[in-house]
């Protein structure tokens, strides 16, 4: 008789569970340096760092300690400089903006284009010395159960993954299918996930979605139109 649940199948479900959990609740924080090359403005988190990173959200990027601010493509296009997607790199200074949209799932574009090469050094990125020497990205990433540091926090991992795996496994067509059991574990999974999200939110981490204060946003996306008095230009 065909085996309904092989070890490989259950293992796949467990990996899938952690990926699902980490995309629904931002719970795996990472900091990593980028390998910066002069005159290259687009960087890929799966290639320009090691191990490769799959982020769900960027919290902060620092260029040798200085903040690199997020910018929407519309702001970059209409306010900063009218760039075409693949050209218009201005090699003038250290980058002070980055744009995430439009260059691939795991890529960012720096503006201005980096004018120096900064060697990748991941040995010491939590100290001032390391921060001053590197370009560091911090963010929330998708789980990778093969690496201990990239797993869902262990205080809920075992139970949440178990509920997810059982809800899927009992749903599978074949002898041994049990829809009541599947429904039970699905409900338990949703309830626990909701509580996990709540305690994670208690950590009140900040995430910068776009630059709204100061630098750019107060300039608007269109030139200002001054309202002139009704008698403007009339001769007396």
């Amino acid at each position, binding site marked *: 008789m065909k085996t309904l649940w092989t070890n490989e199948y259950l293992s796949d479900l467990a990996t899938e569970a952690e990926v699902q959990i980490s995309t629904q609740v931002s*719970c*795996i*924080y990472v*900091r990593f340096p980028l390998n910066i090359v002069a005159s290259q403005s687009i960087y890929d988190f799966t290639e320009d760092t090691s191990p490769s990173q799959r982020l769900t959200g960027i*919290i*902060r990027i*620092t260029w040798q*300690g*200085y*903040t690199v601010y997020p910018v929407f493509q519309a702001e970059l296009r209409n306010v900063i400089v009218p760039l075409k997607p693949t050209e218009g790199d201005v090699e003038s200074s250290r980058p002070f903006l980055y744009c995430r949209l439009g260059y691939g799932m795991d890529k960012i574009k720096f503006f201005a284009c980096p004018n120096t090469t900064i060697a990748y050094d991941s040995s010491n990125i*939590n*100290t*001032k*010395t390391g*921060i*001053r020497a590197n370009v560091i990205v911090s963010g929330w990433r998708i789980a990778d159960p093969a690496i201990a540091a990239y797993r869902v*926090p262990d*205080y*809920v991992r*075992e*139970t949440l993954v178990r509920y997810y795996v059982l809800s899927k496994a009992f749903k599978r067509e074949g002898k041994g299918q*049990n829809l*009541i*059991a599947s429904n*039970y574990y699905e409900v*338990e999974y949703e*309830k*626990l996930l909701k*509580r*996990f999200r709540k*305690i*994670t939110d*208690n*950590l*009140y*981490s*900040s995430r*910068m979605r776009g630059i709204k*204060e100061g630098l750019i946003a107060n300039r608007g996306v269109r030139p200002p139109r001054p309202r002139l008095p009704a008698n403007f230009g009339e001769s007396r």
Partner: protein
Amino acid sequence: MNLTQITDRVRRNLDDSSAGFYSSADDIVPAIQDGYNLIVALTESIEKTAVVSFVSDLVFYDFTTYITDYLRIFGIYNNQTNRWMQPTSLLELIQYRDDWELTEGDPFLFLPIDHKRVALFPTPTVATGSMTVMYKARANTLGANTTPQVPEEQVDILENYATADLLTQAEEFYKALGYSALLEGGIEAILKVLRERSSPNQLYHMQEVF
């Protein structure tokens, strides 16, 4: 109520006192411990303090490397300056300084980041002294005579978790649903107790008013 007493109550719920279908060591105690780990994490019912030395040049502290049962932070006292440190947000730090990680000085703000890391602001290049970290702790391992650290009136929450867990292993899902509902109610009750306990003292406020 200690672990042995909870184990007996779970066995009684399952009508297993004489049958011995469930093993205490392999089934019941692991289920209680599993529930204890989870409930302590969800309700954050255990609070502790620990002294951690400042580390030269370090901005981002991974407290799990200094404190084995660390769950999350809720306060820091700087023993070097004898001042409380205040929690802050990333946006506030960026408003102070664009390169806030590189600031030199005695820390007076802390930024919780995730379930491990906390950033301090500012930080000394050459560190002296220590901080007292107030944190929510993970569950301890229960021994036979250990009483779980949850509010006394809600200690049956572990009994409910373990009973539901063992009933599902026997594919008794309808029966497990009842205990699962009791578990949910118990978590809410613990959260309410903890929330009310941390609100201001009512008697003190009465004195202020009158």
